[in-house]
């Protein structure tokens, strides 16, 4: 998890395009200035960052399902629940599942856990757009490789 660059996902553990699910891991850093303010003496991951972690997990799932031809942009956050504190140094495991693919949008349901304990969940809607800039697409390809996106599992079309 690179909080400075808002890259919250470290590794794709499993991507199942048939079941339309993804499992990712995100290692919360042991120290960061965010934790100095949130909160002094009681550092915890802000709920917005947990929500963003769930969004980025869903985003990788959608990129796989869309064969990297379109980019998902977060549009609607529903039923976001912060069910327990996530502390520095903990390993967050996030499972996302495609709930619905509409025309130009997609909806996912996501859950984040530390160990077996459910920490957060949400229903997220994304607008699906062509990549607005070729350099952006190149960047996403590089990110995909870095976090272990199984490009070999992508359907050819």
């Amino acid at each position: 998890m690179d909080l400075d660059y808002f890259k919250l996902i470290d590794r794709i553990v499993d991507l199942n395009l048939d079941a339309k699910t993804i499992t990712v891991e995100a290692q919360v850093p042991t120290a960061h200035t965010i934790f100095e303010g949130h909160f002094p003496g009681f550092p915890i991951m802000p709920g917005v960052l947990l929500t963003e972690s769930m969004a980025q997990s869903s985003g990788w799932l959608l990129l796989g399902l869309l064969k990297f031809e379109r980019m998902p942009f977060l549009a609607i956050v529903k039923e976001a629940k912060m069910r327990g504190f996530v502390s520095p140094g903990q390993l967050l495991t996030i499972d996302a599942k495609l709930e619905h693919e509409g025309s130009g949008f997609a909806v996912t349901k996501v859950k984040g856990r530390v160990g077996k304990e459910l920490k957060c969940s949400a229903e997220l809607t994304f607008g699906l757009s062509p990549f607005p800039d070729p350099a952006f697409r190149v960047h996403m390809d590089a990110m995909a490789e870095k976090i272990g996106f199984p490009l070999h599992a992508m359907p050819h079309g």
Partner: protein
Amino acid sequence: MSSTYDQIANIIAETCDIPRDTIKPESHAIDDLGIDSLDFLDIAFAIDKAFGIKMPLEKWTQEVNDGKATTEQYFVLKNLADRIDELVAAKNASAGTSTGS
């Protein structure tokens, strides 16, 4: 009025927090009810789920942008209900064909 229209009106009322009695068959979703594109995503999700279809919003938008259709054809609610009925009928016909019935 068709039950399709009533379902759509109920979805819009609930999704956009618009009083149900202000929604009429002649209402234009954008011009009269002030529904924006983000709210319409939410409405499309609810309609897709309720009717088991995939509303071709991108195709409709393209047709409007190309001047091949008017927004009234898709976004006046009684017309939207007709479009949804057509999509449901097409889906049922397709299901009948695929099962050989």
